[in-house]
């Protein structure tokens, strides 16, 4: 059995330890907010947090998360930063097709958890692993800046 925590809850799976975390989340735990985009850690649609750090779930074998804390788009709103980021995303009305946005939100949350007022360069560096075919990059930048502003005021 593979034991780890997802969004604060313990889970125990009888699964192939080589299987990527993505499929355990999506198929075994039915947490489908984490998206499959490329399967090669090239697009960022599957971004989740493992112990607070952004990782690509499509290339993270289950064996590597044993005993770890995994956070997904469904759970990230429970944190101060996650709540602010999701609120900013809604306020800026970022999504078009929306498919990449859970991954974008997770990358943005990881950035803001570590860097309270990121520069434009910090944002580009942290977010350039997350592709968006609809071209919402300007709105993503704006939403991150908005969330940073809200978090700074609240602190």
């Amino acid at each position: 059995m593979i034991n780890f925590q997802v969004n604060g809850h313990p889970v125990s799976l009888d699964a192939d330890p080589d299987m990527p975390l993505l499929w355990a989340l999506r198929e075994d735990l039915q947490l489908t907010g984490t998206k499959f985009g490329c399967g090669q850690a090239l697009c960022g649609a599957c971004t989740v947090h493992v112990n607070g750090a952004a990782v690509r779930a499509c290339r993270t074998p289950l064996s590597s998360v044993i005993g770890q804390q995994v956070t997904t788009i469904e759970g990230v709103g429970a944190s101060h930063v996650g709540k602010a980021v999701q609120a900013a995303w809604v306020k800026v009305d970022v999504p078009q097709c929306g498919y990449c946005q859970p991954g974008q939100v997770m990358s943005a949350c990881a950035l803001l958890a570590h860097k309270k007022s990121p520069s434009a360069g910090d944002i580009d560096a942290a977010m350039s692993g997350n592709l968006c075919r609809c071209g919402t990059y300007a709105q993503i930048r704006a939403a991150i800046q908005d969330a940073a502003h809200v978090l700074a005021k609240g602190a």
Partner: protein
Amino acid sequence: MESTRREFLGSTGAALVLGFTLPLQSGRGLAAAPVSAAPFAPNAWLRIGADHQVTVICGSAEMGQGVLTAIPMMVAEELDADWRDVRVEQAPADQAYINPAFGIQATGGSSTVRGHWQVVRQAGAAARLMLVAAAAETWQTTPDRCRTEAGQVVHADGRRLRYGELVARAAKQPVPDKPALKDPKDFRLMGRPLKRLDSPDKVMGKAQYGLDVQVPGLLVAVMARAPLPGVKVRQVDDHAARAVKGVKQVISLPSGVAVLATGYWAAKTGRDALKIDWDFGDKAALSSTQISAALHDAAAQGMTGGAVARTAGTPDQVKPATLLDAVYEVPYLAHACMEPMNCTAWVREGEVEIWAGTQSQGPVQGILGQVASVQPGKVKVNTMMLGGGFGRRFAPDFVIDATLLSKISGAPVKLIFSREDDMAAGYFRPASVVQLRGGLDDKGRPVLLQAGVATPSIMAASGFMKLPPSGVDVQAVEGLADHVYDIPHQRMAYVRQEPGPQVWFWRSVGHSQNSFFLESFIDEMAHAAKQDPYAFRRSLLSGSPRHLGVLDLAAKRANWGTPLPAGRHRGIAVVQSFGTYVAEVAEVSVAADGTPKVHRVVAAVDCGQTVNPEIIRRQIEGAIVFGLSAALYGQISYQDGRVQQSNFHDYPVLRMSEMPVVEVHIVPSMEAPGGIGEPGTPPLAPAVANALFAATGRRLRKLPFDTQALKKA
């Protein structure tokens, strides 16, 4: 795109385009809606509950272009609904939702708003009149003593009733035949930048895309797909695949071999273990070199032969003072939607149910009826959110194969094409080569424009259109043969070439390449005439005020003609496509190693009357990003019958760090609405190419841009 689909449907379309007055069929989602009292559902497009909630039912697929907000805005405007009470849900496949723009229920050709412009507003207006009649009856007065505002009927004496209080009585009123529509000056919702209704769920990870569908007993299928049409499985060894834990079945289809398992990982592991001997037939040596050579030959033939798409004057007799000759080329392109292609299908006794992100809800209903041998009415299509469409999801391939696999296996099946699977055997924007000849008189005025167009036929490949008797594929020449530049002598001809890859609609279709060709070549002519490219275009567009309007606005907002910081240069292009006029000015610089950088793009758009200006701006911005990805990087190439690209590492798309500043300016207009999903893409590549010429003096006639050619000598 839409005109040809309309042509194809010409004979049957009219009979189907009845729109909103069709009664609801029983037994579909509407009837099962969980409300205590019966809702007021006067037509297929909306229902109002006793709880005052207005539910708009949208027949078009949401792929990011905003239909799940635009259609509700149009209905709610004429209904005079309180926007806070408006929800939206996706319609089933049903004749009631046929898009009058092309006579089928499908989402493409930038046609949702313009196609439904009358029908959904009439649906809202009819419901409003019925609510007014119901209130008048309640108050024992006449409808002319009542008006409506934001979800209420208001009596002249000040009494008010909310719509939810009127549903029972409204349902008994006769449905008005041709309700009058509002004067645009009275619009309360349309024309405002309202927020999208689908955003919150997308941000929270709750939106349900095709890939997210869960069905009890589901098997996941991953396929080894034939790399080209006509390539067949000679032999398959599936021993290793069947030995993978979780693999349940291996099924051969005409399009390849599928491995069905309890989950994706097992199915993919099984598929990877298949040993397949493919019979490539005469396609074993297919290469991009070969394809390009054939297209070049055909384009040359098109200068004198070919199927003539346009002629004017006497192009073979005119003697220009200056002649320009150029050959332009673009490669095949993948759509690379963020959500890989997928469909969940469940073939049960006498019926089929599918869950898919499809742009083609109506057509697939008919197709799947044939696939599963059931009546089309027994095919239930659940349209899910689309993680990008761009035309790829108009194709029925993944829907057909999922249905076949469910039929054969007896289980509900979710078929998933991985990124690599879709790219290896994709539906691609066709490669194209165009030979151009331009002539200027001794005053530098253009007198001749000639084009030989060589590219595969999307119409022939589509399965639902036919090449017209003229032999001219409309998509192959759109953006070129339909230009409005005032040039007296012209000849443009199409020479069909079919190298083998499956070709398909790709955001802006023929305009995606032909606008690059034409708008670059017009720039070449301007430079040959020693004229400013903006002024040169103006002098040739006096007959088209809407082209001029966007051209002038873009030039003005980009400060055309004023100095830029050192190293920065501008290029301009203007294109009408899908009924919308867009001009773009790109600002670029080129690094010493030849790497181009696009700093800023200023766009001006005239799409007629607007529903939601913010969605329009975002669509144009997104279309610019889409065009820039293709111009800088997009290329599907072939070697030994196989696609050489597989994923985002070798088929790159624009990243945030490369995102230019984009400004979108909308021309106020009372014209009929134009499309908005596609028209922002065509002007981008030529605007950038023209700016790169201004920066380096090098004319790049091929996409993606060859940065080696831009390297400083």
